[in-house]
């Protein structure tokens, strides 16, 4: 039992270090895309952590929670990425339509 406890400690320590590094990148990311990427990576690591909790607590409900958490994290990533992309595109599109109008006139 002590051997399995040591293995659990190593596994949770390495996973927690991964979450800690992505939290550091979220705090000091130069652009907003770095922060978005750090959030996405944290979501994927937390899916693994929740399934580890399902094994530790021997409860089948945690796998459902992990699936639902992954779905919400995926939607969050897509929505934020599309928002930032459209934020970049809007002024250039306006400039293009203005220049095309000017050419037509």
């Amino acid at each position: 039992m002590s051997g399995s406890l040591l293995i659990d400690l190593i596994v949770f320590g390495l996973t927690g270090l991964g979450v800690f590094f992505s939290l550091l990148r979220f705090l000091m990311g130069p652009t907003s895309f770095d922060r978005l990427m750090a959030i996405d990576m944290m979501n994927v690591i937390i899916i693994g952590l929740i399934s580890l909790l399902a094994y530790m607590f021997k409860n089948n409900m945690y796998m459902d929670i992990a699936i639902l958490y992954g779905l919400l994290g995926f939607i969050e990533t897509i929505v934020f990425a599309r928002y930032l992309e459209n934020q970049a595109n809007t002024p250039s599109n306006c400039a293009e339509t203005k220049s095309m109008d000017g050419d037509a006139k």
Partner: protein
Amino acid sequence: MTDLIQQIIGYTLTGLGALFYFYAGLGLLRMPDFYTKLQASTKATTLGTFSVVLGVGILNPSFLGKSLLLIVFVALTNPVGSSVMIRAAYKNKVPVCKETTVDEIAPILTNQESQRNGGENHE
């Protein structure tokens, strides 16, 4: 005996997955560029999630169906999210690092834009 083999395989897979999570965090912290950081974090976390969830499913076989479902789900969604993020970053002109010399998508995009503009002019 089968319990021992099952525990050995499960703990090995889980430890490998946790190691890949650690490597993904290290790559996210140390890589010089947005694109290399995204490649390191996405690939390593996908493999780590496969390994950890499969290890949990082998350690406790009553979780195996849901863990396989979770693996399929992560394999479908994680590359899509990374490709959407990298497209948004490329359209926002996030700078690349000094060592990057090849930009393969720029001539394709300029070709598409010139073809589109040419078609509009012909009309």
